[in-house]
């Protein structure tokens, strides 16, 4: 039932990440009239990153709603709409602004189903453009996904490809619980094959992007893409890296990571969020606590964001988050048995 402005002739086309998200939104709104969008500038302007595009023209201002600049208001309205049976999809213009919506997301959306014994549910989706690399400085460049992964009752996704961006968004809209999707701003223009039909990518299942035997590199979002690129370079250096794209950090696919580490005996976790108390700590601890501990042949290594606000200076901005060279160096050290 392809029915939007994108070419629909072939089964699989090349779309950008932003186009894939838009296609998912359009297909969901077509299939289910309870689905509606709202957020700052998602309507006439087409979204700060152009994701909603022409959707306001196709579905009208009643279903693609420009809101006032109040993240708490947007989130509260979404929680209320979801409880009363709607399927709201909201956009937090920059994920950094989600701090203003914490009460509704953490204290309300995440807990209502549990506090009402399952009699109420909150089927809402929050899209959050995040990450650094656009020269937007400390208040517009953060990677805050780990904050929400700490909250029982929320699901947190980080698709890295156009294919997953579409399939996971559709799965999130189907889900009866609140789901947050962190979209890396640098990924919006990246392209990939995307099937035309509406399909779902299951939430909580990691993808093995490349098989290898010497070291497991785990990442999500843009770091999964970097790890995949780096694996080529490592291969030319004689190191066989297995790359796992988490896709979902809550729930997390521990089984896939564990099976990989059992095979490679070495684990490198790469993430853009601040390294301290981050996702890497959780994954490292899960492995260290598990029976896979006995299969480790080297310390688990984390590569994460610097313990500092993201700088405006473009050189420092790059230095503050793991780059491909950093991943190559860390993986090489790990396999060559140096102290990484």
């Amino acid at each position, binding site marked *: 039932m392809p029915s939007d402005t994108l070419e629909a002739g072939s089964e699989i086309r090349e779309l950008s990440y932003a186009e894939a998200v838009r296609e998912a939104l359009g297909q969901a709104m077509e299939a289910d009239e309870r689905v509606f969008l709202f957020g700052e500038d998602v309507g006439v302007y087409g979204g700060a990153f152009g994701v909603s595009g022409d959707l306001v023209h196709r579905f009208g201002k009643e279903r693609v709603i420009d809101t006032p600049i109040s993240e708490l208001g947007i989130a509260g309205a979404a929680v209320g709409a979801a409880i009363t049976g709607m399927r709201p999809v909201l956009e937090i213009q920059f994920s950094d602004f989600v701090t203003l919506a914490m009460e509704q997301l953490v204290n309300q959306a995440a807990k209502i189903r549990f506090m009402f014994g399952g009699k109420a549910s909150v089927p809402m989706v929050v899209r959050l453009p995040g990450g650094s690399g656009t020269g937007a400085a400390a208040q517009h460049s953060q990677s805050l996904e780990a904050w929400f992964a700490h909250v029982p009752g929320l699901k947190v996704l980080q698709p890295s490809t156009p294919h997953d961006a579409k399939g996971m968004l559709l799965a999130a809209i189907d889900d009866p619980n609140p789901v947050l999707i962190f979209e890396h701003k640098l990924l919006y223009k990246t392209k990939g094959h995307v099937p035309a039909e509406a399909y779902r990518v299951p939430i909580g299942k990691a993808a093995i992007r490349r098989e290898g035997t010497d070291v497991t590199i785990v990442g999500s979002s843009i770091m999964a893409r970097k790890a995949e690129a780096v694996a080529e370079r490592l291969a030319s250096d004689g190191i066989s890296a297995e790359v796992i794209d988490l896709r979902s950090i809550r729930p997390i696919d521990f089984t896939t990571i564990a099976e990989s580490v059992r095979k490679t*005996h070495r684990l490198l976790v790469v993430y853009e969020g601040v390294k301290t108390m981050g996702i890497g700590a959780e994954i490292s601890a899960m492995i260290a606590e598990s029976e896979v*501990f*006995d*299969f*480790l*042949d*080297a310390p688990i290594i984390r590569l994460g964001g610097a313990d500092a606000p993201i700088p405006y200076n473009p050189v420092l901005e790059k230095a503050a988050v793991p780059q491909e060279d950093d991943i190559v160096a860390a993986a090489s050290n790990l396999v060559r*048995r*140096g*102290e990484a």
Partner: protein
Amino acid sequence: MPIEVILPKVDMDMETGTIETWHVKEGDQVRQGDTIFEIGTNKAVMEVEAPATGAIRNIKAETGVPIAVGTPVAWIYLDGEAAAAPSEPTAAAAPVAAAASLPPTEAPLSPAIAGPSAASGLRATPLARRIARQNGLDLKAVTGTGPRGRIGEADVKRHLEQRPRCSPAPEARPAPTPAASPSEGRLQPFSAIRRIVASRLSESMRTAPHFYLTSEIEMSAARELLRRLAARHERIGAPKPSLTVLIARVAARILRDHPVINASAEGEATRFHERIDIGIAMERDGDLVVPVLRDAASMDMPAMSREFARLRDGMAKRTLTPAELGGGTFTISNLGMYGVDSFTAIINPPQGAILAVGRTLDKPVGREGQIVLRPMANFTLSSDHRIVDGVAAARFMAELREALENPEVLL
């Protein structure tokens, strides 16, 4: 956290070291910079200082056993930690020579992963420990090649491949008759010096094609000269000159005119040394050491006698540095004082030649148609045929004879 004391790398190419003496014992208070042990390496003994101030605990390296560089040998507990952390059971540091210990037949229990006191020893990855458990292997016998001697999967697998296969089927083998088995005796691992001597001399015999020229040289004039020099040295307060020093003095003088004997093979080239540095083979506690008379050609007999005495004392007191114990360009080995008539020596690599000196003995020789008794000594030059030819070596020996029989000419 207690501070680790590791076996340091104090010499280039050093992979293992032997603790000769501990200056501290369990529980002693040390200050940063205090000498805590002495390490025997490339023929010298170096003092190792405490990296921190506190109490020494868990000394786990025995003296006299080669230990891999980087292995923790003790811990220093800082003030306050000492009381809280009782002394742990001492565990022997893994001897490098995997020596005699055959793997135990029963799998050891899982090694304790000590919490705050992971100090207790052995570094091994979880996977290495797992494989060791499965194979009933004691990790103490495995040499770790990872950071700080950490044992990894590859180390354990290498060890398992190399260890002798224990026959699990005794009935298939006849019991060995006692007569057929070699005497058990005592198995003593090489000292640090012994290992270096063994490896260097094996290398020398393998790579340098040796040939030997022997000359019997009359020592009347040399003896007379030594007698006169002794009186002079006594007057000026220099040590009594020895035959070995006189030979070194003569050799240094004539080596100037025989540069190919004062040379080394380097790949496919000959390195002619500008300076003449003569090593004198000596014995210390059963070990062979070779202190070097640096720039020997520049010294007269009193100077060389003083330097020789200094080296000999320093060697006995173990105060010589590695630099004073290596890097010669030519070596003299004199076993005459032990009654040896003559012998052939192995070249001290990378040098090109070594002179072996036998005892001086009155022998009947023909002089002017008469058989007379003269003090005679055998000198044997071992040369590396890659860089020295027979005639070049023979010319050197001819001049050595000339000089020793008429030493005034040179001195």
